[in-house]
């Protein structure tokens, strides 16, 4: 007993080091494979408030450009609205809605890491929840991962773990959108079958398989394509519409049917077995 205690006292610093290293490695590898840690994320009160304060003072610099961007979006939406055929306009019945939209601001952005997360200034009290889609006026941005009362973190499409259903706009062939963590302007679309005709410059949009994003949200255009190692599928480099280094205003989208869809899928899967 005496020897054990002596041993502990002699190596107490080494043991303390091992303990702390072990804790940090557990936190790290947990989020390698699954979700970001519930505790270690910037959607908490302290970091959120500091980032929001900093954003308040720096947001003035890009104001003119941001206004121009929003104006252009309004122009496009008004054009669509006024040129719609009258019978196509649905009554604004709250039972017929499929999506809710919340607006937000990016208060922290990163794109230099392997797993990039964005922090936005909307949280649970603005009814933002995990697994809601986040887009900008130009295209897709990411998926909400953690929320606190006033803030949330968004798993950016520039994240190794990101995997989003996407398709080619003209032909409706769909695949998965991933990121190889090399270039922050380019993401990869995989699992597109070999027989599909591809042209450089084709538009890529979100697919209908996703229960997170509405269909046809722009993502980017085809920059380069090549067959993958199995020679049966294409691996397409997609250059993004979004400038990921300069993002200010975002929309957070809630699919009101998501729970029902997930429930159905689960039911089908359990029936199969």
């Amino acid at each position, binding site marked *: 007993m005496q020897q054990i205690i002596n041993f502990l006292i002699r190596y107490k610093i080494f043991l303390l080091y091992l303990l702390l290293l072990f804790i940090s490695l557990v936190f*790290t590898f947990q989020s390698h494979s699954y979700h970001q840690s519930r505790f270690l994320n910037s959607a908490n009160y302290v970091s959120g408030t500091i980032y929001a304060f900093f954003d308040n003072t720096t947001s003035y610099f890009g104001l003119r450009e941001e206004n121009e961007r929003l104006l252009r979006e309004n122009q496009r939406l008004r054009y669509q609205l006024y040129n719609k055929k009258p019978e196509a306009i649905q009554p604004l019945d709250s039972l017929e809605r499929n999506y809710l939209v919340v607006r937000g601001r990016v208060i922290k952005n990163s794109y230099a890491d392997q797993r990039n997360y964005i922090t936005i200034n909307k949280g649970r009290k603005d009814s933002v929840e995990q697994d809601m889609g986040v887009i900008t006026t130009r295209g897709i941005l990411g998926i909400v991962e953690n929320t606190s009362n006033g803030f949330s973190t968004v798993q950016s499409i520039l994240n190794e773990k990101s995997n989003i259903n996407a398709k080619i706009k003209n032909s409706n062939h769909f695949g998965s959108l991933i990121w190889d963590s090399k270039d922050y302007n380019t993401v990869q679309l995989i699992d597109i079958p070999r027989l599909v005709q591809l042209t450089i410059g084709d538009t890529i949009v979100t697919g209908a398989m996703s229960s997170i994003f509405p269909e046809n949200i722009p993502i980017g255009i085809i920059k380069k394509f090549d067959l993958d190692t199995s020679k049966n599928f294409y691996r397409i480099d997609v250059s993004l519409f979004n400038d990921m280094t300069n993002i200010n205003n975002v929309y957070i989208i809630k699919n009101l049917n998501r729970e029902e869809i997930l429930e159905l899928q689960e039911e089908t899967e359990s029936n199969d077995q």
Partner: protein
Amino acid sequence: MINSTFFINVLRFVLLILVQVLVFNRLNFFGFINPMVYVLFLYWYPIKKNRTTFILICFLLGLLIDVFSDTMALNAAATVTIAYLRPSIMRFVFGVNYEFQSFKLNSATKAQQFTFLALLIVVHHVIYFTLEIFSFANVLLIFKKSIAIGTASIILCLLFSSLFSTRKE
């Protein structure tokens, strides 16, 4: 005297975190270079202090940086390792000298100070990027990031340490 060093260290702790997350994490020089200047805390921390508290403080420092920058616990792991290795690095750089009561960082030569800082940063960055990328297929990427970002960190830390150097007695 004890109170003033305590106060200075608390101030450094807070300021280095804020500078790191609000300024240097947004630098994105060449698209990926974000120098890590908070390693200076370990460079400046008094030598004669209790090692247990030192390791705990460094773990907390790394963890707070992680919380702000959404990097899981990578900074905590890297920082706690260099905190544990610091005495060995010092013995390597300064020789047995540093165990004397009168030893001060300022009394060491410029070359020794530089080596000490560089070793801290190199070990920190290699551990950080190995854990971040964590695949043997990407060893080259680990090297590239460690070298590029490590160089940037060393340059900025040298600038900072000469800017805020304590007065020579």
